[in-house]
């Protein structure tokens, strides 16, 4: 699917919104960058291809005062549903341009395959092949090999909520039981092994907070406990225990809220697989409450409800 249909839709949408958020080419052909369109002449810049990785729905809560159009992939659309459930956006002020998606690239994976050479050109062929040109030559890759893990188990390639659809809907052929296979596998390891694994990963964390700020559901942002002096739960030291604490807080706050867009992990400059922690908690939320974040606007997130006795949680007998 080319971007032509999307450009047509956006031209229309732009007539009755203040701004449309879409993608344009970034600093090279492997990177897309969000563009905020408020003039018709910007529409020509719009692109749609597997390099359009960012979750643009994340900008919606900060633009609440405006009427906004937003381009979303299937996975990103869950953000909008979760925002609706949590009352974080006014749906009547958002126009959703959905793209049925056949997968995006992981920039890290592509760069690894081409030895981190500067990118001269990237061409996506109809059969799913990707040609990447660097000064060292041309490399042919298949999209499936360089997609982020979320794409390989994606259940919602077509947005779960939209006002316009830029192509024919696509049905997922992925097995629902595979979504948490990685979590289950990891849970098979001993506590000690898991501890060692995470200590090694978190040791690289530089507390830049890209994972937090890029997360659509991290809504505290400027009031995050990680930087607060009052309460003073975490110091500014860059040692393992403080980093660990930050990530535990980040994860717990996303339990049953994380829409599994993978942004936290994608943006980490230190390559820390932080999404796995949130997936683990979502897996538990599914087991305990049979709840999946961001799929049905009518759902109430479990943390917003309260039952004296939860069916699947054994209370301590008081």
């Amino acid at each position: 699917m080319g971007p032509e249909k999307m450009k047509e839709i956006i031209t229309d949408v732009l007539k009755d919104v203040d701004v449309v958020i879409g993608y344009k080419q970034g600093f090279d052909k492997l990177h897309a960058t969000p563009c905020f369109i408020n003039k018709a002449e910007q529409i020509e810049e719009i692109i749609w291809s597997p390099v359009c990785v960012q979750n643009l729905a994340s900008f919606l809560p900060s633009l609440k005062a405006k009427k906004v159009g937003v381009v979303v992939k299937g996975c990103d659309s869950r953000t909008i549903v979760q925002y609706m459930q949590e009352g974080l956006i006014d749906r009547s002020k958002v126009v959703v341009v959905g793209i049925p998606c056949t997968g995006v690239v992981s920039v890290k994976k592509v760069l690894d395959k081409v030895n981190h050479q500067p990118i001269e050109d990237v061409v996506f062929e109809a059969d799913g092949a990707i040609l990447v040109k660097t000064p060292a030559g041309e490399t042919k890759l298949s999209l499936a090999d360089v997609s982020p893990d979320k794409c390989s188990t994606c259940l919602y390639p077509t947005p779960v909520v939209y006002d316009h659809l830029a192509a024919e809907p696509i049905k997922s052929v992925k097995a629902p039981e595979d979504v948490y296979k990685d979590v289950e596998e990891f849970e098979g390891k001993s506590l000690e092994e898991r501890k060692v694994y995470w200590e090694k990963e978190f040791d690289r964390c530089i507390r830049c907070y890209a994972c937090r700020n890029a997360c659509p559901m991290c809504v505290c942002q400027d009031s995050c406990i990680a930087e607060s002096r009052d309460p003073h739960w975490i110091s500014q030291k860059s040692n393992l225990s403080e980093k660990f604490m930050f990530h535990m807080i980040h994860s717990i706050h996303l339990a049953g809220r994380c829409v599994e867009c993978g942004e936290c992990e994608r943006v980490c400059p230190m390559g820390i697989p932080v999404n796995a922690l949130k997936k683990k908690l979502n897996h538990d939320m599914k087991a305990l409450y049979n709840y999946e974040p961001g799929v049905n606007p009518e759902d109430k997130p479990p943390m917003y409800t309260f039952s004296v006795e939860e069916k699947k949680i054994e209370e301590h007998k008081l």
Partner: protein
Amino acid sequence: MADTGFIPKEKWGAFIEGLSTKAQVYVPCLEGDTVLFRPFGKEKTLCFERPANSPPKSVIFPQSDTLFSFTFIKDPDNPQKTEVELKEHLDFPKTIVIGSRPCDAKGFTVYDRPYTETDTPDPYYKGRREKTTIVTMTCNSPSAGCFCTAVGGSPADKEGSDALITEVEKGYFIEALTEKGKEILQGPGVEDGKAYQGDATKKQEAVHSMVKNPFGPKGLGKVSPELFDNDEFWDNAVSKCVSCGACTYLCPTCYCFNITDEQTSDKGERIRTWDGCMYVHFTLEASGHNPRPTKFQRFKNRVGHKFSFYPEKYNGVIACCGCGRCIRYCPMSVDISEIVSNLQGA
């Protein structure tokens, strides 16, 4: 003493290991897909093939540094009376960084001006800087986002380094640039380098032209004061920024810090930690007032410091080394070189 040397490929590992017996050695190590500077150890996977994700700045300017520790001691005879015992932390080991890139090394010179070349040098920075030898590796090719040549650097730039290593066919050509650098030539396995000088120079020149120049053939012009003070310009330029701060923490020239006392009951430490102008708390005042409440004002400061205020104060020197990390790792692919390019006056 000769100022150049050569290490054959097969002796490279032993050379680094040898140096590590005399000083604390930091080298770029591969962990998963990520390259970062770590203290050398035989179990580490060294990676010189591409610039590290994070620069070696933390070796000299640690992310978190204990300036001193303090203990409150009560007088047992007079509990009203409390003394404070202070302990300074100014003891720095001899250190060698191997495998910084020219842009990383240049970054330290940006710190030197405010931290050491002043009447009130910073003892922590200065202490480590003097004890550290920077052994830089010239780049075999630029990476995505690199633009060092557009801001006065190059893939073989010598500024800020004590020695420069260039990979040639059979090994590594070393050029000592300072007295500290000459000491490196005493490392194990170093042979005479003269024969390899020509190859090294050729290699360096070839890479130079591969680095992109985002500012056009005339180079970086003057920042237009009208555009710089135009709020709409900034608002449009950075609407996509999520104000995370990754760009400042990965930057070899960002040197802002915060100072906090981290205390439990009767003991504590005064620590200095990295801070960055992209964070909302950076300018938050005790009163609750924040002079830079919006992200565009914060971004404007980041660009302003590097391309306008710093050059004004220090003879036109740009406080950006063009390493491209803020571009490469920005979650939203915000490109500082594009923004600066658009800021130039007609």
